[in-house]
């Protein structure tokens, strides 16, 4: 099983490895997968609260080369998109870009799940915030 050049490139030069501040209200964190499955992805996005644009994205992955490449690619694609545009990223886009073979398609699915989980976490933080701002305003 030979790897595509793009997978190798992401593996050897992963983009955006690292962590953002989980506690920040502007950061959405998604952790998907399970150690027993051999695949765990942590994807984080930093969103501009005014424009809704993803200004930064970081990832960390426990998994095979294809999983690492899928999540690295995801962070590249996320930067510059709005939160809603990000939800349109499909696993099939990742499969095509990286030329993933059938046996590795599930890695791209996990990356799509990670994106959705990160966005969902960010959105959940936004819904609790207005209430707090009101309280702060009154205080």
């Amino acid at each position, binding site marked *: 099983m030979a*790897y595509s050049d793009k997978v*190798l490139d992401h*593996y050897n030069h*992963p983009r955006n*490895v690292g*962590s953002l501040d989980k506690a920040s209200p502007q950061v959405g964190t998604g*952790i*998907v*997968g*399970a*150690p*027993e*499955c*051999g*695949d*765990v*992805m*942590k994807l984080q996005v930093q969103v501009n609260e005014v424009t809704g644009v993803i200004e930064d994205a970081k990832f*960390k*992955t*426990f*998994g*095979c*080369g294809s*999983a*690492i490449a899928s999540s690295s690619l995801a962070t590249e694609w996320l930067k510059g998109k709005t939160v809603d545009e990000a939800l349109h990223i499909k696993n099939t886009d990742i499969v095509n870009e990286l030329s993933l073979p059938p*046996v590795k398609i599930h890695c791209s*699915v*996990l990356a799509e*799940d990670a994106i959705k*989980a990160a966005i969902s976490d960010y959105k959940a933080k936004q819904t609790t915030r207005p209430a707090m701002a009101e309280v702060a305003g009154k205080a």
Partner: protein
Amino acid sequence: MKLPIYMDNHATTPMDQRVLDAMLPFFTNEFGNAASRNHAFGWTAEEAVEKARKQIADLIGANSKEIVFTSGATESNNLAIKGVAEMYAERGNHIITAATEHKAVLDTTKKLEKEGYRITYLPVQQNGLVDLDMLREAITDKTILVSIMYANNEIGVIQPIAEIGKICKERGVLFHTDGTQAVGKVPVNVIADNVDLMSITGHKMYGPKGIGALYVRRKSPRVQLTAQMDGGGHERGMRSGTLNVPGIVGLGKACELCKQEMAEESRRMSYLRDKLKDRLLAELDETFINGTMESRLPNNLNISFAYVEGESLLMGINDVAVSSGSACTSATLEPSYVLKALGAGDDIAHSSIRFGLGRFNTEEEVDYVAQKVISVVKKLRELSPLYEMVKEGIDLSKVQWTAH
């Protein structure tokens, strides 16, 4: 030092040049069929075959007449297990084996189960060894065979074969052992080890692929088998088919070389393996050896680097050939069942690497590989969310994962 470096000698071995030299004439000038009894072409072939039989028998403490040639250990395992099951069907229908056996044994016993045989799959302890008391308790008056491998192909652990054989002898049960990984590497003696049947293959001991043998005991007791290949009655009626003379000559020569070089070679293998092990353990935390080191093949190291997945590690050491128990590296996406049988979680299987050193590996190669593995593991741990969580003090076993 040539790249890539081959350290996957449990999967197969390169052929020793001396073995190849011994085989070549039998492809060209001395091409006779060993069963051609009436001319010199046949006599020459037959003589070469008998010489090889003796070389193999000498390596394992057997008699030439007790060696049956097959196409490899998979066929030998099939012949031993099915051959005994069918021959001794009137005596009983129960066979005992272990959960860590090679698929050549496990798939064979599964087939027999479909035909009405009862199979007991003994679990192993965390160190990889079979529990002898469990074995004793499992034997019934319907048990006709126990099949336990001499040394495991993934973790290199060597079972207490002589004791298992003794228990079987006391209870009147035949004992087969798959000797694929052990023969030629450690001193095996079918008399001292109380073995009645043993599978051997050429390509794990610097011999050719496609040839193997089955040791079948002739004295106390005299073991009989129902042949699985019919057609001419070769090999005392136990395995029909024209003999692969060049392959047999190669297997014989490989055995002879192993006998001569085993003591020195196993010392050198242990030294190199321990050097690799010690360097990895010294420089990397959260790193675990799978299976006991106390009863183990001298050339095997099966080691897990927690929080790093096996296939990504193999990708990083792409100029070193080794293998992994990770699901991502298997055709079926199943993690190693051997590591699972040790009680290790799937995550340990996913993080495991198997190194199998061999005759042609050098100390320079071991140093290079150690350095490469250490740097790749460190790099992948920086990418690992699990390593990050553990360093933050999170207990991974308490986390709710979103597995799909």
